[in-house]
C-alpha cells in the first residue's frame, strides 16, 4: 500500500468512528486536539468532510528546524485580505524572530501575543469551540506539536448596508433601520445610548443554526426580575434553527395560542432605544432586521415614534385618529352588515332610501356581499405583496378599478359596499404595527359573520369576547390591556394623547420599579424675563 492510501484509509476509519460516535451521542465539545498536526487535521477533515467551502492551507514555519502548521478557514465568511496580510505573512516571515528566542518557548502563546496582528484571538484545545469559531468566520491556526490552536477573528462577509426602514416610516425623525447583522444592530443601539448602563448579553440559539441572540437592556432601569425572566425563557428554547426571530417570539410569548401579538417587533433603532429607556428588554437575533421588544401593552400598537418627534397636538391628534381608524377597520364592515340586515331603523329615512336603492338588484344578502368583497380585497393585498413590483401595480389597477367598477356595474355588489371595503382597507393601513394589523385583518371576518347573523347583539358579543381575552392576557407578567385595565390614570398621558416632554417626568410605571424619574423637575419653557429693559 502506498502511504497516501494508508492515510486515506486512516481518514476513512476515523470518519466512520466519528460518525458512529456522533450517532452514539458523542459531544463535539468533549473532543480535544492532539499534539500531532496530522491527527488534528484528520479530526477537522472528518467532521468537515464534503464541505467544499472549507480551505486548508498548510505552511512551514522556518524556525531553527522547520515546524509544520496549517490554517483553516471557510471561504466566503472571511476577509481574505486580513488572512493574507495579518496571518499568513507574519507566519511565513516568522523565522527571524524565532531564531532569537530559541525553541523552549510556548510557540502558540508567542504567536498570539507577538506575531498575529488580528484583533480577537481565542486560544483553545476543544474541537467544538474551534468548529464554532471556524463556522462563524474565524481562521484556525494549527501548529505541529501543540494541542492548542488559535481561532483568529477574520469575519468579513457580504452585508446589506444600513438603509431606510420600510415598515414603520415617519415624516419627521430618524430613517435608519436595523439590518441582518447583529453587530451592526447593537452598534446602532449603542450609538443612541452611549452609556455603560446599556448591557448586551449574547447567547446562541439553535442547535444547527447557532444563531447569535442578544438580550439588550438598560441596567438600573429594566427590573432585574424582568431581565432574568427573559434570560430564562430564551435559555429554555431548544430548536434547531431560527432565521426570522418569529420562532423566538412564539417560544417566549406568555400565551402562544393567542392571536394578539405579545411581543413588539420593530425595525427602528430609535423606537427600540426609547423602549429600553422605559425599562423594556430587547432581543436581537442575528440574521434578521426585526428586533423583538418585551413586554408590550396593547395600546402601544397605536403609537408611532413620530408622535414624539412632532408637536404635542399633532402627536396627540394622530393617536386619537389612529385609535378611531383602528376601531373602525375592525368593525366597519360588521356595522354595515348589521345595519343593512337588521337595524334599518337606525338610519334616517333619506339615508336609508339611498342605501336601499344601492342594494336593489344585488343578488346576495349583505353578509355574503361583505364577506365576498373583504375576501377579494385580502387576496388583492396578498397578491400585491407576493408579486414582483412591476406586476404588483397591474394587479392593483385590475383589482381595484376593473373588478371593483365592473362588479358594481354588473350589479353584483352595491356601491356602498365598495365604499365600506375601501374605507376599511385605508383605515387598516393607519395601524403602525404590522403584526397587530394582521390580527385585525383576521378578526374582521368572525365579527362580520356574528353581525350578519345576530346583528348588534352578535357584534357586541364578539367585542366583549375580545375584551375578555385581552384583559386576560399578560406579556411577561405585565397586564396586556393596561393602563386601561387595570386602570392607571397617571400613565394615560402617554397613551391616548402625548403629553409634552417636560410633563412626562416619570418612566412608565408598568415596567420600571426604581429609577423612575426620567428628568429632574423642571419648569415649563417660557420666554426669558425681560430684565432691566423695562425698569
Amino acid at each position, binding site marked *: 500500500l502506498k502511504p497516501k492510501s494508508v492515510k486515506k484509509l486512516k481518514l476513512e476509519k476515523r470518519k466512520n468512528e466519528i460518525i458512529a460516535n456522533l450517532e452514539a451521542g458523542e459531544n463535539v465539545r468533549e473532543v480535544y486536539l492532539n499534539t500531532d498536526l496530522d491527527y488534528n487535521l484528520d479530526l477537522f477533515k472528518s467532521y468537515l468532510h464534503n464541505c467544499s467551502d472549507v480551505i486548508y492551507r498548510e505552511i512551514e514555519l522556518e524556525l531553527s528546524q522547520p515546524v509544520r502548521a496549517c490554517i483553516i478557514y471557510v471561504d466566503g465568511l472571511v476577509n481574505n485580505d486580513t488572512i493574507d496580510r495579518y496571518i499568513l505573512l507574519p507566519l511565513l516571515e516568522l523565522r527571524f524572530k524565532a531564531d532569537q528566542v530559541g525553541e523552549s518557548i510556548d510557540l502558540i502563546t508567542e504567536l498570539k501575543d507577538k506575531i498575529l496582528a488580528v484583533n480577537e484571538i481565542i486560544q483553545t484545545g476543544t474541537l467544538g469551540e474551534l468548529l464554532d469559531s471556524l463556522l462563524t468566520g474565524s481562521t484556525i491556526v494549527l501548529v505541529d506539536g501543540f494541542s492548542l490552536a488559535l481561532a483568529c477573528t477574520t469575519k468579513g462577509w457580504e452585508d446589506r448596508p444600513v438603509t431606510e426602514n420600510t415598515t414603520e416610516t415617519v415624516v419627521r425623525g430618524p430613517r435608519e433601520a436595523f439590518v441582518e447583522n447583529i453587530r451592526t444592530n447593537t452598534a446602532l443601539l449603542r450609538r443612541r445610548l452611549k452609556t455603560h448602563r446599556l448591557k448586551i448579553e449574547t447567547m446562541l440559539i439553535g442547535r444547527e443554526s447557532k444563531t447569535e441572540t442578544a438580550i439588550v437592556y438598560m441596567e438600573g432601569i429594566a427590573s432585574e426580575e424582568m431581565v432574568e425572566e427573559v434570560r430564562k425563557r430564551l435559555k429554555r428554547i431548544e430548536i434547531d434553527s431560527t432565521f426570522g426571530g418569529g420562532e423566538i417570539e412564539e417560544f417566549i410569548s406568555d400565551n402562544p395560542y393567542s392571536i394578539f401579538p405579545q411581543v413588539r417587533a420593530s425595525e427602528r433603532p430609535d423606537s427600540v432605544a426609547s423602549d429600553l429607556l422605559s425599562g423594556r428588554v430587547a432581543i436581537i437575533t442575528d440574521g434578521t432586521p426585526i428586533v423583538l421588544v418585551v413586554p408590550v401593552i396593547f395600546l402601544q400598537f397605536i403609537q408611532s415614534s413620530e408622535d414624539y418627534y412632532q408637536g404635542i397636538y399633532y402627536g396627540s391628534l394622530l393617536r386619537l385618529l389612529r385609535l378611531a381608524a383602528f376601531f373602525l377597520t375592525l368593525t366597519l364592515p360588521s356595522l354595515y352588515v348589521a345595519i343593512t340586515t337588521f*337595524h334599518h331603523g337606525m*338610519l334616517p329615512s333619506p339615508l336609508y332610501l339611498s342605501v336601499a336603492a344601492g342594494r336593489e338588484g344585488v343578488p346576495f344578502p349583505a353578509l355574503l356581499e361583505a364577506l365576498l368583497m373583504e375576501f377579494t380585497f385580502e387576496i388583492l393585498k396578498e397578491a400585491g405583496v407576493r408579486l414582483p413590483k412591476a406586476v404588483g401595480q397591474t394587479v392593483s389597477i385590475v383589482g381595484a378599478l376593473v373588478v371593483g367598477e365592473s362588479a358594481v356595474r354588473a350589479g353584483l355588489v352595491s356601491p356602498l359596499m365598495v365604499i365600506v371595503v375601501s374605507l376599511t382597507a385605508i383605515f387598516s393601513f393607519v395601524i403602525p404595527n404590522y403584526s397587530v394589523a394582521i390580527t385585525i385583518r383576521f378578526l374582521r371576518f368572525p365579527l362580520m359573520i356574528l353581525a350578519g347573523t*345576530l346583528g348588534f347583539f352578535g357584534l357586541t*358579543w364578539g367585542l366583549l369576547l375580545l375584551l*375578555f381575552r385581552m384583559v386576560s392576557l399578560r406579556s411577561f407578567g405585565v397586564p396586556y390591556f393596561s393602563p386601561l385595565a387595570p*386602570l392607571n390614570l397617571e400613565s394615560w398621558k402617554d397613551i391616548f394623547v402625548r403629553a409634552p416632554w417636560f410633563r412626562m417626568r416619570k418612566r412608565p410605571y408598568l415596567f420600571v420599579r426604581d429609577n423612575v424619574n426620567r428628568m429632574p423637575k423642571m419648569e415649563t419653557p417660557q420666554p426669558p424675563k425681560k430684565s432691566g429693559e423695562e425698569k
Partner: protein
Amino acid sequence: MKEQISNRQFLFVLILLVIPTVIMYVGGIGASMAKENVWISVQIASLFAVLIIYINVKLGLRFPNSDFGQICRLLTGKWFGSLIILYYSFWQLFTGSTILREAGELMTTGVMRETPLVVFLAMIIFLAALASYWGVEVIARSSEVILPVIIIFLITLWALSVPNLDLANLKPVLADGWIPVIRASLPSIVFRGELFMLIFFLPQLRDKVKANRISQWAGQIIGLLLTINVVTQIAFFGAVEVGRMVIPTMTHAESIEFFGVLERVEIILIAFWITGITMKVTIFFYVNLLLLAQLFGLKNYRSLILPTALLYFVFSVVQFENSLDLRNFIANYFFLFSLPVEFLIPLMLLIIALIRKKEENSIEKETG
C-alpha cells in the same frame, strides 16, 4: 400568585353588579306603585343599602382569612352551615338565570324577533363561563373598561333629553302618602341588596381596610345614577306613562333623535345593556361557582363551570312562561325570596359571631 383585585376594581365590579338591571326596571316597577314619587323610594332603598352593606362587610372582615362557606360552618355548625350555602347557591342560580332570561326576552321581543331565545341565552352564558374560567381578575378588569363606557352613554342619553324635560311632571310630592312609596321601595331595596355579593370578593381585595367605605360608595353612586335616571324619565314622559312601560329606559332611548342623523338610538342602548347584563350574569355566575365549590369543599371551582353553565341555561329557559310572568315575579315575590340572602342570614351570622365572640385576627385590629 394569588389573584387580587384593587379597590377601584372592587368599586367598579359592585356598581356594575347592580346598575344594568336597576337602570332598566326600577323606573317602570316603581312608577306603577309610587307614581311621581319613585325617586323618594330610591332614597329609602339607598338608606337600606347602607345597612345591608355594613352588615355584610362587618361579617366578612371579622373572618378575613375564611371564605363565606367556612364562616357559615364555623358559626352555625357543619350541617346547618351547608344548608345556608345551599340556599345561597340556589338563590344565586335562580336569580342569575332570571337575569339571563330578562336579557334574552329583551332581545327576542325588542330587536331580533325571529331568532330563538335559546341562542341569546347560550351565547351570554358562554361568555360568563369563559370569563369565570379566566378568573376574577378578568372580571374586575373588564368592569374597569365597561362601566365608564356605560356611564358615559347614560349621561349622553340624559343630556340629549334635557330640552324635552318638564319638571312639573314630578309634582305633587307625596300626594298619596308614604304607603305606596314604601311599597315601591321594596323591589328597589332588593335590587340594591345584591351588593351583599361583596362578601365573596373580600378575600381577594388588596386593601381590606377600606372595604366598607368603598362598598358604601358603590351603594350611593348607584343610588345617585338611579335617581337621575328616574327623575329624567318621569320628567320626560310623566309618571302614569312610565308606570305602564316595561322598560322605560328603552322607550326613552327610542324617543331621542341625535341631530337628525341617528334615530332610534335604542339599539345602541341595547348593545350597552347587553354588555352590562353579560357582566352582571358573569358576576352572578362566578359567585355561584364559588358557593358551589365551598359547598362541596373544592379548592378550585373550574371543574364546576360546565355543569353550572348548563344549569343556568336550562333554568333560564324553563323558569318562566313569558316576560309577563317574569315581571310579575320580580314585582311581587322576589322580595321575600331575596331578603334572607341579602339581609337576614348575614345579620343572623353576625349576631351569632358577636354572641359567641368568634373572630379571626380582624383587619381593623391588625392595622391598629
